[in-house]
C-alpha cells in the first residue's frame, strides 16, 4: 500500500510522456499573438497557394469544395508573410479589433 495519495489534478502520465498532437495543438494556441489579421479578397485570389506554402504556421489551406482559401484564426500570429508573398496582392492586414469574431480568449497564456 503506497504511502502516497496523488490528487486527481496532479496525476502525471508515466515518465511524463504524452501523446503528441497530430494536426492542431490545443495546448499552444497562438492566435492571440497577432495585432492584425490578413483579410483576403476572394475575387482577386488565383489560388496560387503561395500563402499556404509560405505560412510558417500552416494557417492557410484550400477548401476543395468551395475552392477558396480558408484562414485559421486560432493559430495565425499575424506575421504578414502571406501578405508579402501573395502573388495577386489580394491580402491586406487589418487591425484585429475591427472583427468581433476570431476571439481566442484563453484563460491563461499556457
Amino acid at each position, binding site marked *: 500500500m503506497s504511502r502516497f495519495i496523488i490528487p486527481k489534478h496532479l496525476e502525471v502520465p508515466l515518465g511524463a510522456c504524452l501523446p503528441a498532437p497530430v494536426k492542431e495543438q490545443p495546448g499552444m494556441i497562438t492566435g492571440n499573438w497577432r495585432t492584425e489579421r490578413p483579410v483576403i479578397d476572394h475575387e482577386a485570389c488565383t489560388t496560387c497557394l503561395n500563402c499556404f506554402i509560405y505560412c510558417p504556421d500552416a494557417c492557410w489551406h484550400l477548401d476543395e469544395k468551395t475552392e477558396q482559401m480558408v484562414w485559421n484564426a486560432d493559430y495565425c500570429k499575424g506575421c504578414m508573410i502571406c501578405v508579402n508573398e501573395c502573388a495577386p496582392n489580394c491580402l491586406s492586414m487589418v487591425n484585429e*479589433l475591427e472583427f468581433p469574431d476570431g476571439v481566442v480568449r484563453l484563460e491563461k497564456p499556457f
Partner: protein
Amino acid sequence: MSQEVYEVTIWARGVFQDMEGRHATLLMANAADLGGKFVQAWDDYADLPDRVGVPLRKYVRLSDEEIEMRFVYVNNNPVLVMIMDDTIVKGLNILRGMPQGGSLVVNTKRTPDEILAFIPNKELLKNIVCVDASGIASDAAIDFMGSEGGVEVASVGAGISAPLVGAASKVCDQFTVENVVKVAANKDGVQKGFDTAQVKAL
C-alpha cells in the same frame, strides 16, 4: 491571516513592448515606494518574452507592510490590470481573478465602449481607463533583457509606460501622479497620460 497586498498585472506584447511592460512595473513600484509602500516589481517567469507579439505579463505588488509571500509566480487577484496593446482583450481573459471593483487601463485609440464590447466579464470592473499612450510616446527601443533578470540600462519610463502609468494613477490609490512624474524619464508623457485619459465608471 492573509495580508493586504494590492496586485497589478500588466499585459504587453513580446519583444517590442517587453521593456515598456517592465518599465511600467518599475514606475509604479518606484512611485509607490516614494509614498512609503512596500513593493515588489518583476516579470512573469513563464512568459518567455523574446517572441514577437506573444502576450506576456509583468507584475507589481504593493502593501503597507512587508510582503510576506514574496515568492509567487502569478498575481492571482489583480485589482488593477493594464494592457499595453488593445488587441490583447480578444486573446485572453485579462480580468481573470480580479476581485469585484477593479480597474482596467488600456493603451488604445478606441473608446471605452468599443473595448468593453470585447470583455464578457466586465461586471467585475469599477472603471475602465483608455489612453492613447502610443500617440503620446512611442514604443521605445527594443532590448532583449526580457525575463532573464537583467539590469535596466535604459532610463525608466521613456516610452508608452509613462502615459499609461500616469493614466493609471487616476484610478489607483497606491501611488500619486506627482510621484510617477518624479520617477519617470518622460515626465510630460506621464502628465499627458493623466490629463488625456478617458475614465468611464461602470
